[in-house]
C-alpha cells in the first residue's frame, strides 16, 4: 500500500474540492475526488414557478455565471414550446461569448499560471524594459516587506517549473494585464446582460434587453480590445509555455485520463442552428491516428449514486433523477454524482470540444507528439477562445441586419405563461464543457429539476462498477516524487478548470450524525 495524501482544500478553483491520492514509487497509484459542499438548488425549485429556474440556476456558479441561466432557459423554451426569435438568440450568444472571453484567460493567468512559474525568478531579471522593471520592483518590494501573500506559500517549484526570468516576468506582467482585460470583458457582457456576475436578461423565450445601434458599436469596440489581447498575448503565452518549457509534461501526457470525450454541441452560427461553433459528438477511447466521432444521444446519459451521499439507486436518466440524501452511506465519499454516457465516464470541456471538432491547431500539437492531458487542455482552451471571438463579430453583423428589419423581435411573448404540464431538456457548451438541464412541469409548477454540469462529469466519483471518474483517472501515473510537494496533482486538477459549487446538488437531510470521511 502506497502513502496516502490529501489536498483539502484544493484552491484556485470554484468551490470546495478535496483530492486524495495514494502514491507508490513516486507516482499516483490511485485517486479519489470529493465535492465537500452542497446547497440543494434543485430541491428548492420543486413547486416553484418554472420561470424562476433560469434566475436561480445562474447562482449554481458565479465564475461561469449565467451558463446555467442559458441552459435552463433552453430547457424552459422546450417545455413552454417557445421559439426564441433570432434577435433574442443573437443577444444570448453575444453575452455568452463575452463570458467565454472573460473566463478562459482568467483561468490561465489567475487560476493556474502560478502552478507553472517560479515567481521568485523575477529577482534575476536583468533586462531594461521599463514595464518589466516595474513588475520586478513590485514583486521585490513584497519580498522585502516579508509579506508576499497571496502569492505564497506555495508548492515548491519542480523540474517542470518555468524559471527563466524573462519568461516569468513577462507572464507576471500579463497576469496583471489579464486582470484588467477580465474586467473589461465583463463590462462588455453587461451591455445587454445588465451586470456581471449573473446576467439578468436571459429569460424563457429570449431576452429582456432591446438593443440599440450604439450598444452594438460599443460591444464591437470592446471586442476589438479583447481580440488584440487574445491574439497577441493570451494565445502566444499558452503556446510559448506549452511547446517550450512544458513540452516534456505535454509529451508525457500527464493528466490524460480515460480518453473519452463528449460535446453536446453549441453556439449557433445561423438562425436554423445548422452550423455550430462547437460541433456535437462522442469519442470513446481516443486513437489519434483513427478518430471516430459518434453522434450524441441524450438517452444514453445516466447518473450513478453508488459512491455519493445519496440514497442507493440504480443509475437512471436525469429526467427520473431522485434526490434523497444519505450522509451516512458506507463507502460514499462525495456530494457529486457519477454521470456516465452509455455506461462510460467522459471528459467534457475545451479539450473534448476541440478533439471532437478535429480542430487543426489542437490536433497539430497532438501530431507533433503532445498527448491529450493537462497541457493540451490549456492549449485547447486558448484556441477555442479565438473561435468564440470570431463568432462574436459574425453575431454582431447579424444583429445589425436583424434589428434594422421591421418587426424585429427579441422575445417569444406568446409563450411567456407556463404550460399546465410539459417537459424539456436544455443543452449548452459553456466554457467548462457539456451542460444539460432537465425540467418537468406539472400544474404550471416545477415537478422535477435536474442538472448535469461539466464538473459533475469531470469530478465524478467511481460508478457502481468501480470505474473511476475523469479527475481520478487522469491523476493515475502523475509524478509525485515528494509527497509533501504534490504540485503535479494540482496541475492536473486545475487543468480542468474545476467548478464545484455547480457540481453538487441535493436533497433532504435524514440524520444529524457526523459522518467520518477523513481518511489519513
Amino acid at each position, binding site marked *: 500500500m502506497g502513502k496516502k495524501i490529501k489536498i483539502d482544500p484544493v484552491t484556485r478553483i470554484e468551490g470546495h474540492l478535496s483530492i486524495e491520492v495514494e502514491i507508490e514509487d513516486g507516482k499516483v497509484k490511485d485517486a479519489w475526488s470529493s465535492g465537500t459542499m452542497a446547497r440543494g438548488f434543485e430541491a428548492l425549485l420543486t413547486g416553484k414557478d418554472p420561470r424562476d429556474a433560469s434566475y436561480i440556476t445562474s447562482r449554481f456558479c458565479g465564475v461561469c*455565471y449565467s451558463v446555467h441561466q442559458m441552459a435552463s432557459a433552453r430547457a424552459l423554451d422546450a417545455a413552454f414550446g417557445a421559439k426564441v426569435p433570432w434577435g433574442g438568440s443573437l443577444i444570448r450568444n453575444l453575452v455568452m461569448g463575452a463570458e467565454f472571453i472573460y473566463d478562459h484567460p482568467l483561468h490561465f493567468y489567475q487560476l493556474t499560471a502560478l502552478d507553472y512559474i517560479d515567481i521568485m525568478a523575477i529577482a534575476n531579471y536583468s533586462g531594461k524594459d521599463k514595464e518589466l522593471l516595474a513588475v520586478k520592483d513590485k514583486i521585490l518590494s513584497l519580498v522585502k516587506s516579508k509579506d508576499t501573500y497571496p502569492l505564497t506559500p506555495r508548492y515548491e517549484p519542480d523540474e517542470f517549473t518555468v524559471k527563466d526570468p524573462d519568461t516569468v516576468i513577462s507572464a507576471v506582467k500579463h497576469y496583471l494585464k489579464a486582470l484588467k482585460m477580465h474586467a473589461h470583458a465583463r*463590462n462588455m457582457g*453587461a451591455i445587454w446582460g*445588465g*451586470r456581471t456576475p449573473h446576467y439578468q*436578461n436571459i429569460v424563457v423565450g429570449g431576452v429582456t434587453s432591446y438593443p440599440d445601434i450604439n450598444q452594438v458599436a460599443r460591444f464591437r469596440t470592446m471586442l476589438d480590445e479583447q481580440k488584440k489581447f487574445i491574439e497577441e498575448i493570451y494565445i502566444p503565452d499558452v503556446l510559448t509555455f506549452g511547446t517550450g518549457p512544458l513540452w516534456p509534461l505535454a509529451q508525457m501526457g500527464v493528466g490524460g485520463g480515460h480518453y473519452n470525450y463528449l460535446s453536446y454541441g453549441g453556439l449557433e452560427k445561423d438562425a436554423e442552428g445548422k452550423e455550430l461553433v462547437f460541433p456535437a459528438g462522442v469519442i470513446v477511447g481516443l486513437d489519434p491516428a483513427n478518430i471516430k466521432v459518434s453522434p450524441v444521444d441524450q438517452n444514453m446519459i445516466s447518473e450513478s449514486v453508488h459512491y455519493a451521499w445519496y440514497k442507493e439507486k440504480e443509475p437512471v436518466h436525469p429526467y427520473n433523477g431522485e434526490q434523497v440524501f444519505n450522509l451516512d452511506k458506507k463507502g460514499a465519499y462525495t456530494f457529486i454524482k457519477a454521470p456516465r454516457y452509455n455506461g462510460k465516464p467522459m471528459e467534457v470541456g475545451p479539450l473534448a470540444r476541440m478533439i471532437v471538432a478535429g480542430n487543426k491547431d489542437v490536433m497539430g500539437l497532438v501530431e507533433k507528439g503532445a498527448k491529450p492531458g493537462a497541457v493540451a487542455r490549456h492549449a485547447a482552451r486558448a484556441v477555442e477562445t479565438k473561435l468564440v471571438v470570431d463568432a462574436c463579430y459574425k453575431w454582431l453583423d447579424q444583429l445589425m441586419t436583424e434589428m434594422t428589419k421591421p418587426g424585429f423581435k427579441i*422575445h417569444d411573448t406568446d409563450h411567456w405563461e407556463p404550460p399546465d404540464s410539459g417537459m424539456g431538456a436544455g443543452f449548452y457548451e459553456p466554457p467548462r464543457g457539456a451542460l444539460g438541464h432537465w425540467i418537468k412541469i406539472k400544474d404550471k409548477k416545477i415537478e422535477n429539476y435536474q442538472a448535469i454540469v461539466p464538473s459533475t462529469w469531470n469530478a465524478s466519483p467511481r460508478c457502481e462498477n468501480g470505474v473511476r471518474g475523469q479527475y481520478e483517472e487522469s491523476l493515475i501515473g502523475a509524478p509525485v516524487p515528494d509527497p509533501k510537494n504534490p504540485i503535479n496533482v494540482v496541475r492536473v486538477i486545475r487543468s480542468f478548470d474545476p467548478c464545484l459549487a455547480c457540481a453538487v446538488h441535493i436533497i433532504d437531510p435524514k440524520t444529524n450524525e457526523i459522518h467520518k470521511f477523513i481518511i489519513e
Partner: protein
Amino acid sequence: MKGERKLNKNFMKIFEAHGINRRDFLKYCSATAALFGLSELDFTTRFAHAVETASSKPPVIWLEGQDCAGCTISFLGISNPPVASIILDKISLRYHETAMAASGYQAEEAYSETMKKGGYVLIVEGSVPSADDRYCMIGGRPFRKILEEAAKNAAAIIAVGACATYGGIPAATPTKGIGLNKALPGKTVINLPTCPVHPDHIAGTVLYFLTTGKVPELDTIGRPTMYFREVIHDNCRRRAHFDAGQFLTDWNDPKQRDWCMLQKGCKGPITTSDCPVRRWNNGINFCIDCGAVCMGCAEPGFYAQMTPLYTAESETSKKILAMREAGMFKKKA
C-alpha cells in the same frame, strides 16, 4: 481622547505608506455620505494593536461557505482602484480559496497563523448550512466552526452578498443556509447584500474601515447607509411611467422599452440600494436598464418572499401593489 488621536495618526502613517490616502478613499466611497455617523466601536483599539504588531499591510481573511464565488468574481472586476493594487499593495490577503497560491495544508497553515494573531478584516461569502454541518466542509472541518473561530479574533467582519448577509437563496433550500446575522449572534457584522455583492461596496467599506478604524454608519439591518439609503424606485428612470400607470407587457415593443416593469415582478419599490445611481460594471448598466426586473436581492426577504420572480404575484409584489393602491408612492417634493 488622547489615545485615539495617537491611534489615528498611526493609522494614517501606515496607510499613506501603502498608497491609501484620503483622496483615494473619498473618490471611492461617495464622499459626503461617508463622513456621516462614524460610530465608536470597540474593535478600533484591537485593530490598531493588530497593525502595529503584525505586518505592515492589514491582513484580510476571506472565507467561502455555501457560495458560488460570484462575490469573489464581482470584486475581481473592480477597475478603480485596480484590483491588483488592492490585493498586492493595500491589503495582505492571507486566505482566499479562489485567489491564493497555496493549497491543502499550506492554505490551512496560512489561515490558522493569521487567525491566531488576530486583528484581521474577516470577509465572508456564502451562507452557513444550519440543517447539518456536513453540507459545507473545508479541510475536513465544518464551515460553521471555522467561521465562529475566525470571528473571535477579527477586527471587523464584513458579510458580502445575499447568502452571507441574510441567507439568500440557500436559505430556501433543504440545507437551510443562514447568514451571519444568525450564525454569529451578538457580533457586529457589516452587511453588504445584493447578489452578487457590488465591488464598490466591498472596496469602499474596507477602505473606510482601514482609513478610519471605524465601522461606517449602518442601518437597522447592518447595511452601510452610504450605499443603502434610498429605495431603487426613488431613483429609477422608469419612475414617471410607474406614476403614469404605464407598465411593460411586451419586451419586443420599442414604445414600451422604458416603461415600468411592476407587472413583470419588479421589486424596486421596496428594495434599498444605490444600484440605479452607482450602476454596475464600472457604470455600464444595471438590472433594470437591461429590461430585467429588480429581484430585491438587497433585502433579507430574498429569495423566499420574492418568488415567483417574474410576475406580480409574490408576497412582495402584492405588498407593493397594496402600497400603490394606498397612495404610498407619491413623489417626494
